[in-house]
């Protein structure tokens, strides 16, 4: 028998499920592709938090040019340095943005560039050290005008 209470509860459940589905699957659906790209970069390892700092604006008015800076805490000596840092964006048509390679001659493992963001999304930076350990940082950037217009 369909009581009012049951009907309401059912509707609430459905709404909640729909909400979850929308959250888990953004229009571009490259969160999975981002995870795959992280795996490809780290060799299957899950990067740890810390050591790397990703600086990006909280709100980017124009997604065509968003300044991002990555900095990794490392002595940058011959035996202990940051080998590479990759930047990924999980809401773009393709998650890959750029990959930096450093050497001890870089002095510090820091770099700034400008990237395109199609919409509001997470930007992820992953650092790979010379000993193979990996670290990551993540920032959400709200984009007012997307950067993939055609």
């Amino acid at each position, binding site marked *: 028998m369909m009581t009012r209470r049951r009907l309401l509860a059912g509707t609430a459940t459905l709404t909640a499920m729909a909400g979850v589905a929308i959250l888990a699957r953004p229009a571009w659906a490259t969160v999975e592709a981002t995870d795959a790209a992280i795996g490809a970069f780290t060799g299957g390892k899950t990067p740890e938090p810390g050591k790397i700092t990703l600086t990006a604006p909280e709100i980017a008015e124009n997604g065509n*040019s968003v300044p991002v800076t990555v900095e990794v805490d490392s002595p940058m000596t011959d035996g202990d340095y940051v080998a590479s840092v990759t930047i990924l964006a999980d809401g*773009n048509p393709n998650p890959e943005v750029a990959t930096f390679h450093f050497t001890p001659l*870089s*002095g*510090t493992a820091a*770099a700034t*560039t400008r990237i395109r963001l199609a919409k509001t999304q997470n930007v992820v930076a992953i650092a790979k050290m010379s000993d193979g350990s990996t670290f990551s940082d993540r920032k959400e950037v709200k984009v007012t005008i997307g*950067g993939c217009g055609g």
Partner: protein
Amino acid sequence: MATPKPRVKVPKKASAGEIITIKTLISHDMESGQRKGKDGNVIPRQIINKFTCEFNGMKVFECELDPAVAANPYFEFNAKVPESGTFKFTWVDDDGSIYTDEQKIAVN
């Protein structure tokens, strides 16, 4: 597209072992391959896909670029200067063109 023109900023002088900041910019459309032209066809991808910086032949910094790098790719990074020498910058285009620039630095 006009021929890409690199612009690089390197300090003229440094003390030995000093870490300097280098800024580079090159004029380039970085056509992503996602946009459609007026005729409705996709404009083919043409981007700078690689940038390298060398000091006296030793690698300092390298970057692989994907279409998500903004037009007129800009990089700011650091370099340790052990001695006087020349920084060489190279940009590689999807069409095979290579653009280069060189800057000298003197160590006091």
